[in-house]
């Protein structure tokens, strides 16, 4: 049962991903990427990705939930601060945020 559900989820996710690539091939040349419908879909995509990220940090499902909320938020805030202070260096921000979290875990265990 679980095996069937995970296979179905994988297949549906793959389809829901590939459909956009195929639609891009199909539509190349005549679709208006700057039209209203596409603009709306793009905004929803940003909103959804942001909701996903916020949920992964604020209410993680996996092993991250063993780390206190304040620590997760603190590490994310430091990553953001480093990112903006280093003229938007993504690698530096990510390394600092994840490194700080690892450092906290090593202190507390």
């Amino acid at each position: 049962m679980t095996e069937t559900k995970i296979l179905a989820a994988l297949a549906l996710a793959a389809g829901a991903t590939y459909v956009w690539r195929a639609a891009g091939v199909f539509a190349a040349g005549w679709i208006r990427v700057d039209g209203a419908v596409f603009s709306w879909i793009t905004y929803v995509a940003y909103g959804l990705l942001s909701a996903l990220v916020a949920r992964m940090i604020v209410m993680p499902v996996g092993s991250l939930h063993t780390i206190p909320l304040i620590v997760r938020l603190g590490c994310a805030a430091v990553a953001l601060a480093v990112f903006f202070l280093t003229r938007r260096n993504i690698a530096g921000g990510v390394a600092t945020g994840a490194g700080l979290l690892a450092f906290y875990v090593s202190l507390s265990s």
Partner: protein
Amino acid sequence: MTTPVAGKMSVVTMAVREGLGIPGMVMGASFLGFGSMVHESGFELWVGLASTFSGWALPGQIAMVELYGIGASLTVITLAVLFTNARLLPLTVTLFPHLNLGTLPRWRVYLLSHLIAVTSWAVAMRRCPELPDEHRLPFFTAFAATLWTLSMACTAAGYALSGAVPAPVSLGLVFLNPVYFMLLLAAERLRYRLLAIGAGALLGPAIHLFAPDWSLVVGGFAAGTLAFAVERWRRP
């Protein structure tokens, strides 16, 4: 800066090398994180590998693993993946005219479109105009296929590492992707996109409190529609 290219073979070599450089490192780190996340969520390795092989679009893959983990329905999973991956359509539409696809059979063009991802798109859009027409397709194919292969290798490596390394490292790896995507979003400069991002960040967790499985779809839908409406209203 760009060295002259003699033949098809050296284009492929150049593309593979470029794929294994900075773009490969960034992508590899993300998939290392994804592999760890798959392990920490209690899935077997083949689930992560199948996801990277068949999807190869990280936000959607993460959404699937997360939503599956909280027992969301297949409808919710499909909708969430569908909306997170909408960006692939404009990427394909804008890149493919640059590849000089000419008389390539349609089925091969459809097959090729699987190799479209943000990283392969960004690099190919930059490099293709400076390459001779006949080298563009081999360059894109070799470059993107290198990244795709690397992504699968890193998914496996992240999965293995997560079980083998001490807790601080494995938790750090799992934390990699939320922080990475948060910074990608924070790097956005367009005002109404930032509105969608801000509203999504507030609505996602808020809706999660009473409708956990629908929070991403409903939150993203509401945040995106709000930003769209405000944009239309402010500059009709």
